[in-house]
């Protein structure tokens, strides 16, 4: 019994508040964390045209988008949408899809028409707008 009480007493001390983990003032960082995990900054391409397209997108991301902050409500973002649509179709169709997306981005009243992703963005994959696709589930 004595031994038990003694061990209980010591264990209490073991988990007691320590001196080296005191409450203290911390620096608060108000910068919003931008999640760019979906972006590929690699310039690896199969042909010169794709390289040119990627280079312009990466330049835009590096000098404008990343500095400006996380503003596009859609997933994928407009620039990524453009790259993906050109890859999924061709330059003409991809550009038309991008122009349409850009117009839809202006409309702030259509946000309820889209499914919200885990990241809290509006799901709007390019597959929905391809001429060859015959399904639309997200909108």
């Amino acid at each position, binding site marked *: 019994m004595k031994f038990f009480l003694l061990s209980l007493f010591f264990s209490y001390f073991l988990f007691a508040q320590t001196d080296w983990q005191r409450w203290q003032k911390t620096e608060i960082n108000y910068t919003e964390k931008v999640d760019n995990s979906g972006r590929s900054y690699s310039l690896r391409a199969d042909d010169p045209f794709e390289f040119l397209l990627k280079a312009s997108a990466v330049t835009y991301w590096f000098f404008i988008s990343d500095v400006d902050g996380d503003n596009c409500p859609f997933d994928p973002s407009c620039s990524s949408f453009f790259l993906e649509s050109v890859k999924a179709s061709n330059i003409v*169709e991809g*550009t*038309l*899809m*991008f*122009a*349409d*997306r*850009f*117009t*839809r981005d*202006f*409309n702030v*009243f*259509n946000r309820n028409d889209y499914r919200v992703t885990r990241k809290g963005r509006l799901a709007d994959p390019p597959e*929905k*707008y391809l*001429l060859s696709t*015959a*399904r*639309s589930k997200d*909108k």
Partner: protein
Amino acid sequence: MMRRIFLLSLLSLFPSILFSQESGLFTPEKRKAFADNLFCEKDYLRASEEYEAINSVVKNDSLSYYIGLCLLKMNDYEKAKDHFFLLRNSSLGEESRLLFLKTSFLLNKNVAGEADSFQNQFVNKDLKTSFRRLELAAQIKAGMIQTNLFSPTNDFEENDAQILKRFAENFSHPQRKSPFAAALFSAMVPGAGKIYTKNYGDGITSFIVTGLFAFLSYDNFRAHHNARGWIFAGTAAFFNAGNIYGSYISARNYNLEKEEELNNEFDSFLNSKNYFVPKEIEGSCK
């Protein structure tokens, strides 16, 4: 004292040996009873395993039928369909044929051809009625029935007949928007195609964006700022081209959504009626 306790515990061992678990626990009859119990408890996965185990020893149409039912209940329609097809000429042929049609329907397969081959293979009056109902539902879904030709037979209750008539009307004359008309409207008036496909917000936005850049272009040309005029004209053309393309896609997506909506509505109606299949043939549990 200790001796007494020892004796007592020794004696208590005897009855447990006498009434020990009897042999033959895994006889087909007992396993069947256990499987039936699992089926009624809605533990379909284990029930099907039990039925499979008995079926490997004692081949029986009823066991195969119950395996099919378990697969159906577990929504494994492809396997269930194959199972019922194999049983179509067995002692449970009529029930199997009906459930085969039901699984085909659940898989969104064209049932019409399959229904034709089973046309005169029903003797049981109730199952025959169920078959006719299911066949008619399949024809409605395929858009094969024109409303003016639709005459609800005695197979349906008045209320159901009215609902089916409405579905037949919607399937044979679906609410569709022409993608070409949408593109044409947008080419004439920016955003009109999207408004035509009931995408009002996007349509108005397209009109404002394209109109704004077109006006800026006009204004700059008028002020002899030709370079700026061309830039704005190009931007307006870019947005309008996207809008024409978007209107075409919007009409196509509208049609797909309506089609899906109607199919889901029809399926949930049929589901509420158990696809016109009598509940008894899907395994009766007390």
